[in-house]
């Protein structure tokens, strides 16, 4: 569960805007209760692309 969640969080963080497809994908790989918590955490947040301090 943890690894899947981390992958989804990383995916969401890479995108400026989340599409319906992103949410559908997240819902398909996460447990329903984890998906709900993810939705609460990311709801209304502006996501920034990987910070690029390279």
């Amino acid at each position, binding site marked *: 569960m*943890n690894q899947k*969640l*981390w992958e989804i*969080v*990383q995916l*969401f*963080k890479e995108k400026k805007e989340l599409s319906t497809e992103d949410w559908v994908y997240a819902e398909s790989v996460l447990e329903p*209760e*984890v998906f709900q*918590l*993810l939705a*609460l*955490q*990311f709801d209304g947040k502006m996501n*920034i692309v*990987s*910070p*690029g*301090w*390279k």
Partner: protein
Amino acid sequence: MRPTIQFIIKNTLLTSGLEYDIQKLTLQLLHQSGKIFSQNTDDFTWGEFSYYAFSLLTDINTVSHTTKVKHAAGIELLMLATDLLDDVVDHDNHLDTALAKSQLLMLGNLLLVEALHLLIQHTATSAIDQFAIIHRHLRNAGNGQWLDFHLTMEHPAATEEQYFHIIQQKSCSFLQLIFELHRSTIPLPVLQEIATYIGYAAQLQNDIQDIFSDHKNDLLSQKATLPLIKAVQHSNTYDHGWLLTQLQLIHSHDITAKHLTTIRDYIRQTGAIDYCSILAKYYTQKAKSLLQHYFNDKSPYIKQLIHLID
């Protein structure tokens, strides 16, 4: 419930035979945030949590109200003692009162002894049995603290699995102690599972807060907490290990507030804080579900306990 536990603690200190300055300092420390005399009544306190857990697990005919309050007071003192000893280990100073390391050590040891006295003295079961439970969990917590001290982000870098293994010992042991102190009809593995989920959630919340606290040294000492483990993992994958390099620079340069802010902003943007926040809420929900499933007697204590862990 707080006033009753406060009364027992005051009374215990007054009759303890401890030096007046020790009693005064202990009460002063117990007025801090998250402690039983805190002005903020919304704070989680170990004393209240223990009382509600004892009440949920036991019948009033087998364990009296007075015993439960005295044991709750014992847990409150025990957690203060371990906090003081942790502060010495972590070089933290989030106390309102400036205390020397030697004072923290002495006070921590004294309060540990007073806590044990309260926990063993008022028990229906054999004091030896009671002590065996306390000893087992405190030893586990001590082992966890030892491993935690030696786990850093330096080579070899800590892993998520190691983090959970250690907090199972160092944090969940205290909760297991509370859940096992009084005999209950609920199966022990269920109680252990509830304790584990609450312990995971609480430790994750603490570790998230400590990354952003100027009073804690987690970041400066590269303490291998999950937010940092995951942020470093992200950094190694996407940014050529920028974060670890910056953390290592902290030791060779003067730390400026701006530099720390940059590091904290970076950690936030890696997704590590989001990840840990979701996990903390997930484990809280797991604990709540088990509590509601196994204690479906509409006990008022369930509501109080859930309110405290939420």
